[in-house]
C-alpha cells in the first residue's frame, strides 16, 4: 500500500509540494518570531500600533489631503499615492517619447536616425541617479526666484519653488465633469463600432469624425468650463517669500518625472525598434503592393504585429519605472520611500515593519502592472484558428 503511494507520481509530487510549502512557512514563522524576540530583548518596539500614532511630519506635495496632524497610516498613503502618481505619468510619457525616438531611429532620414541612436546610447549608459540629480539641480538652477516668477495671465506662475496653478476650492464639479467626459468617450466608442457594422452591412457611411468631434472635444470642453465656473478658485498671490495659495507642482516632481521619462524612453525606443524590426519585410512589401501609404502600413500592418513582440519587454520597463520612482528619495520627492522609509522609520525606529510594508507596496502594484500587461498581451496575441 505505502509502496504504491510512494511510486504514484501524483502523490509523490503532492508530498514534496506540501513538504516544501510547510518548511517555507515554518522558516518564515521562525524568522519573524526570532526577530521579534530579539527586538523585545533589545528594548525595541515592535508591532503595527505605530501606524495610529500622529505623524507630525509636513509633506510639501500631497494628493490625499494629508496634514501633519494626521497619523502615520495617512502619511503612508500620501507616500503611496505620490509614488503611483509619478509612476503612472512617467509610464505614459515614456511610452510616447520612446515610440517617437524608436520610430525616428528607424527613419530613412540619416540625421534623425543618428540623433535618435545617439540619444539611446547616451541614456542607456548613464546611471539613473545621475539623471535625477542632473534634472533636479538643472531645474532649480534654470528657474527664477519667486520674486521674478514667470507668469501666465497672473494666474499660473513658474519659479524654482514649482509651478503654481490656481486651485479649485471644491472638487465635486470636476468629478461630475470627469464622469461626463468618460461617458462621452464611451459613447464615441459605441458609435464607431455601430458605424463600422452599419458600413459592413449596408455600405452606408456615418459621419463618425463629426460625431467624434462633438463627443470627444466639445463635451469635455463644455464640461470643464461648467466645472470651472461652478467652483471658487484659490488664486496664487505674491507673498513675502513665495506665492501664497494655489496648488503647487513641486520641482522635485518635475525633476523626477523628467528623469524617469527621458531615461525610460531610451529603453522603450529600443523595444520599439526591436518590435518593428521583428515584423517580416514581406509584410511591408505586401502592404505596399496593396497600395497602402507609408503611414497606413505602419498603422495597420506593422505596429499591430510589432506590439506582440513589444508588450512583454514593455512590462519590464513599466515595472522598472515603478521601482525607479524610489529615486525620488534622493531629491526629496515625497514618495513612499522618502516619507515612510525615511521620516516615519526614523521617527518610530520600527525598521522591519516599515520596510516590509514598503516592499509589499511595490510588490502589490508591480503585480497589478504585470497582470494588466499580461491581460493586454493575451488580448493582442496572435489568435491561431
Amino acid at each position: 500500500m505505502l509502496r504504491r503511494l510512494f511510486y504514484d507520481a501524483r502523490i509523490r509530487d503532492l508530498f514534496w509540494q506540501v513538504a516544501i510549502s510547510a518548511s517555507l512557512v515554518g522558516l518564515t514563522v521562525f524568522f519573524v518570531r526570532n526577530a521579534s524576540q530579539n527586538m523585545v530583548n533589545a528594548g525595541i518596539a515592535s508591532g503595527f500600533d505605530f501606524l495610529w500614532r500622529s505623524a507630525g511630519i509636513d509633506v510639501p506635495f500631497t494628493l490625499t489631503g494629508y496634514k501633519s496632524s494626521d497619523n502615520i497610516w495617512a502619511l503612508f498613503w500620501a507616500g503611496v499615492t505620490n509614488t503611483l502618481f509619478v509612476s503612472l505619468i512617467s509610464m505614459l510619457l515614456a511610452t510616447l517619447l520612446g515610440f517617437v525616438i524608436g520610430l525616428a531611429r528607424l527613419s530613412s532620414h540619416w540625421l534623425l536616425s543618428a540623433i535618435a541612436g545617439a540619444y539611446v546610447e547616451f541614456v542607456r549608459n548613464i546611471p539613473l541617479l545621475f539623471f535625477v540629480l542632473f534634472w533636479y539641480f538643472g531645474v532649480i538652477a534654470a528657474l527664477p526666484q519667486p520674486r521674478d516668477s514667470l507668469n501666465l495671465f497672473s494666474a499660473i506662475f513658474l519659479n524654482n519653488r514649482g509651478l503654481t496653478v490656481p486651485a479649485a476650492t471644491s472638487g465635486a464639479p470636476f468629478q461630475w465633469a470627469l464622469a461626463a467626459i468618460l461617458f462621452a468617450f464611451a459613447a464615441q466608442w459605441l458609435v464607431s463600432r455601430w458605424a463600422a457594422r452599419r458600413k459592413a452591412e449596408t455600405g452606408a457611411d456615418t459621419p463618425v469624425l463629426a460625431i467624434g468631434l462633438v463627443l470627444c472635444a466639445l463635451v469635455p470642453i463644455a464640461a470643464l468650463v461648467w466645472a470651472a465656473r461652478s467652483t471658487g478658485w484659490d488664486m496664487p498671490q505674491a507673498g513675502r517669500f513665495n506665492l501664497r495659495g494655489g496648488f503647487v507642482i513641486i520641482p522635485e516632481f518635475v525633476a523626477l518625472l523628467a528623469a524617469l521619462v527621458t531615461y525610460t524612453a531610451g529603453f522603450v525606443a529600443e523595444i520599439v525598434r526591436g518590435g518593428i524590426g521583428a515584423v517580416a519585410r514581406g509584410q511591408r512589401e505586401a502592404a505596399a503592393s496593396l497600395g497602402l501609404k507609408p503611414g497606413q502600413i505602419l498603422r495597420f500592418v506593422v505596429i499591430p504585429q510589432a506590439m506582440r513582440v513589444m508588450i512583454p519587454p514593455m512590462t519590464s520597463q513599466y515595472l522598472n519605472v515603478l521601482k525607479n520612482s524610489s529615486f525620488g528619495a534622493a531629491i526629496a520627492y515625497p514618495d513612499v520611500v522618502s516619507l515612510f522609509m525615511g521620516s516615519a522609520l526614523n521617527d518610530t525606529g520600527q525598521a522591519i515593519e516599515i520596510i516590509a510594508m514598503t516592499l509589499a507596496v511595490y510588490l502589490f502594484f508591480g503585480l497589478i502592472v504585470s497582470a494588466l500587461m499580461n491581460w493586454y498581451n493575451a488580448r493582442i496575441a496572435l489568435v491561431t484558428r
Partner: protein
Amino acid sequence: MRDFVNKNGEDVTMTKTNLTAVIAATAMLAGGAAVAQTLVPSPTLDAIRARGNLECGVHVGVPGFSFPNDKGEWSGLDVDYCRALAAAVLGDAGKVKFTPTTVQQRWPVLQSGQVDLLSRNTTITFSRNATLGVNFQGINFYEGQTFIVRKASKATAAKDLDGASVCVAAGSTEEKNAADWFRERNLKVTITNFQKNDDAIAAYDAGRCDAYTAGVGALAGQRAKLKTPDDHIIMAEPISNDPQGPVTRYGDERWQAVVRWVLNGMIAAENLGVTSKNVDDMRANSKNAEVRRLLGAEGNFGQMLGLSNDWMYNAIKAVGNYGESFDRTVGKDSSLKLERGQNALWTKGGLLFTPPFQ
C-alpha cells in the same frame, strides 16, 4: 520541590533554580575574595579590549562636532568625547574607529552592535528612549533649533517665516519640531524633507528653500558649507530645546556607567580646575579629595568600573576637560566662536552639572 533542614535547624524550601543561584553566589563570593571585587560582566568592554579600539558612531560631517579634515582626521566636540572615552578605557586616545552615520543610519548601527556608542548631535527624546532600545548617557551639548536664512529676506525670527519654504533632514527632530511649531502658530510653511543634512543644505543653497533648519551649534558649522556664507544669517532665537549627548543601547549597564561617568568626569574636571596642562601636577599635589579620587591618586574609582585607576587622568591628559574641548572645537578658539551660554558650568550661569565623584 524538596524540603531541606539547614545547619541551624531552620526549614528551607528550595527549588532547583534557587539552588543554582546559591551555588553561583557562593562561587562569586569565593572568587571575589581573591580579586577584592567582582564586577558584573560587560560584553561591550570585553569586546573593546579584545579588538583594541573603540567603535564610535559620529555624524557624517558637522564642523565643530564631528568633521573629518582632508587627511581623514576627525575633530569636534563629539569626536573629542570619543577620544576621551578611548583614553579612559584603553589608555590611548588614538584607539578610536569613527563610523560616520547619517540621520537615517544611526539607530540601526547602534542597535545592531556595529558601534559601541553614538556621539553625534543626537537629541534626547522620550520616544527614542522608550521605543528604540537606546539610553542617553547625559548631555554634552545644549542645542536649540533655529533657522538660517538669506540676509536679503530680512527675516530675523522664526515667526517671520510665514509663507516660506524650509529645507530639513528627514527623520530629524527638527523636521517634527518645525512642523509642530508652525502649525501651532497657524503659519503656513512648506517643509521639504531631504534624506541627508548635506542634501538639504545644498538645496537651500541652490535657492530651493528660503530657510534651512538645524541646531544653533550645528548651523554655525554647516554655514561654512554654503557658497557665500556671509549672505546668510542664523536666527538667534531658538524654537526648541534639544539636549544632545552620547547614546548607548539597552543592556550592559556597566558599559553605560563608563560612558556616563567619563562625560561627568570631563565636566567635573573643568569645575575642579583640572586641565590637560596641570593634570600631572594636580594628581601629585592636589589636596582636594575629589580631584584625587577623579585622577586615581586616592581610592580605586577606575577599578570599580573595571578600568584602570588612571582612567580619567588619561582622558584629561589626552583631550582636556569639557571646557578645553568646547573652546577648541566650537568655542572661542575655533572658527565657530559659539558662546558657552547654556553649555557653561552651573557655577557660571550655564546648565552643565555633574554629580559628585564620591
